């Protein structure tokens, strides 16, 4: 082939991939409008949506790669990596970096729905630590932060050590891990049923049935302040113990048998072995599990939202933030609460990045 022909081929190729890109954009735009129009048949929308959503993303990458492949060698080598990383970076920019900066900015203003940001200052933060309702939310968050990790980790650890010595370990572990598959909403319905107080007739909620069977009067558990916070915390412990158990179980299996044997020969009872050999040996794993659960609990929302909506003094930060942002439309105040949650996790973030730089 002569140079002219190759040149011509290349031009055709470039034009072709440009055309494909244009067609893709048009298809995207069209399907976007199509999906927004609620008049189209649902099944059709569904099929179009799936094809465009899943296929579209691949088409995007392949077209971009093809386009770059037509460029002169030098430019091509420079641009190629960006075909791979640009979409991810754009998504991070639009969905995490920009909104986070914007939320921090908003948190310094009086800003409500329909208005504009006014009066730069710390008022939203001052309010967060002085307003009685918010102080209760902070107190409750503290309760959650202390008791959920405490109970899930210690129960998880005890289970991990116990199941290590039985034959049906696998079955026991998977049954305790099972709640991890259930949504917070589903779990909340499960426990609402347990805490239910029938206004008349037989008590069909498990807890009140037990109370009545023992001769007591049925209790409205979710209105029983301040204990109702603990009844909500129980739900999270029930959900998270399986997680702690699995991680701690593999840590416990890593404790050398010779170490345990030596301690036993020295006359240590099982309790001393547990507290003075096993726990120190797996302290790293315990710390990891605790941190993970703390981060999760900091953002607890669904359980409170479904169980009480924060009534009867069970409010927590994340639910309050939701209410202020999306129900009351007090954006500035809600943003300040989001920033407080964010600040609380930054030590973990810094730790992760530091660890990365050491490696």
């Amino acid at each position: 082939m002569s140079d002219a022909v190759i040149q011509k081929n290349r031009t055709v190729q470039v034009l072709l991939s440009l055309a494909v890109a244009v067609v893709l954009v048009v298809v995207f735009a069209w399907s976007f409008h199509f999906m927004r129009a609620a008049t189209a048949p649902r099944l059709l929308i569904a099929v179009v949506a799936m094809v465009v959503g899943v296929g579209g993303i691949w088409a995007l990458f392949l077209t971009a790669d093809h386009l770059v492949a037509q460029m002169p060698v030098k430019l091509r080598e420079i641009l190629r990596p960006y075909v791979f990383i640009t979409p991810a970076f754009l998504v991070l920019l639009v969905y995490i970096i920009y909104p986070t900066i914007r939320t921090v900015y908003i948190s310094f203003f009086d800003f409500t729905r329909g208005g504009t940001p006014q009066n730069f200052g710390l008022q939203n933060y001052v309010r967060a630590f002085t307003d009685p309702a918010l102080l209760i939310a902070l107190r409750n968050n503290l309760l959650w932060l202390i008791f959920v990790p405490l109970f899930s980790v210690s129960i998880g650890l005890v289970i991990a050590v116990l199941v290590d010595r039985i034959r049906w370990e696998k079955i026991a572990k998977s049954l305790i891990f099972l709640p991890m598959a259930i949504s917070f909403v589903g779990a909340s319905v499960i426990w609402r049923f347990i805490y239910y107080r029938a206004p008349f007739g037989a008590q069909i909620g498990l807890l009140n049935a037990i109370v009545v069977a023992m001769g007591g009067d049925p209790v409205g558990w979710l209105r029983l302040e301040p204990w109702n916070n603990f009844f909500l915390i129980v739900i999270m412990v029930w959900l998270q113990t399986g997680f702690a158990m699995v991680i701690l179980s593999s840590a416990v299996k890593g404790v050398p048998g010779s170490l345990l044997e030596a301690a036993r020969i020295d006359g240590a009872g099982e309790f001393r072995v547990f507290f003075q050999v096993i726990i120190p040996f797996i302290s790293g794993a315990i710390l990891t599990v605790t941190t993970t659960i703390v981060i999760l609990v900091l953002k607890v929302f669904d359980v409170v939202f479904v169980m009480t909506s924060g009534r009867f003094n069970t409010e927590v930060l994340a639910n309050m933030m939701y209410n202020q942002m999306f129900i009351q439309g007090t954006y500035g105040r809600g943003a300040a609460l989001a920033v407080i949650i964010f600040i609380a996790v930054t030590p973990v973030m810094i730790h992760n990045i530091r660890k990365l730089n050491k490696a």
Partner: protein
Amino acid sequence: MADSLVIQKRKLRPEEITSKVLLNLSVVAIVVIWTIPTFGLLISSFRTPEAINSTGWWTAVFHPFSQGFWTLGNYLRVLTEDQMGTAFANSLLVTIPATVIPITIAAFAAYGLAWMNFLGRRLLFILVVGLMVVPLQTSLLPLFRLYNDTGLAGTYLGIWLAHTGFGLPLATYLLYGYISQIPRELIEASEVDGTTPMTKFIYLVLPVSVPAIASFAIFQFLWVWNDLLVALIFLGTRVDVAVVTTRLSELVGSRGQAWYVLTAGAFLSMIMPLIVFFALQRYFVRGMMAGSVKG
């Protein structure tokens, strides 16, 4: 353990038998306590509304053959009249692309970060690690307003992209960890005439990375399926778009005492995760462990 082998050969002493029995009994007790809540819900969902309201679900366990006790009517009613069927379809429609899209974007990015040289590579990786624990709460408000301005609010596309954004740092980090460990010889051996980074990625890296992809896919699938907050804000509670979690929480609000509706509805919302749990248990545990750090 070695010593347990020795123990099995000789006869157990009485106190050893007692402690073994006690050990097994206490594990049984824990397992029963952990299972009862879900079990009670499951049993109740198959009882008639009258039976649910007149006796506790445990009576059905002790007298399983009483007449007129069992029914599938609760499910039928919740699927149709209470729109749980639509919600189930919507959940699938939201969850599948919201799993595939972030995995695709993350796999491309992880490959670029692991095997290509470009300006800002290190910085970008640090960014991914740092963003992993950023709580999605700080993103909600600006995105909500952006969605309202662009018309993305209440669309499937909008919620796919939102879940893509929130899941991407973790996905990229996990896939990077796996893809960067692929032996260099394997990558170089595939370099014959005409291979480009893209063909290497599609024909070598992706197939090799299936275990890592599967673990993350399970985690993301369950995360999206079980999510309430993101669905509530970006998709809303209108019955034609609501997913199972938002629908169920609406039912709690509107029919909070109708246990025949709530138990069946809750079980429907759990059935998909439970299928994944029992069918893919090993991957499931691995995925949940890997994903536990998500922001």
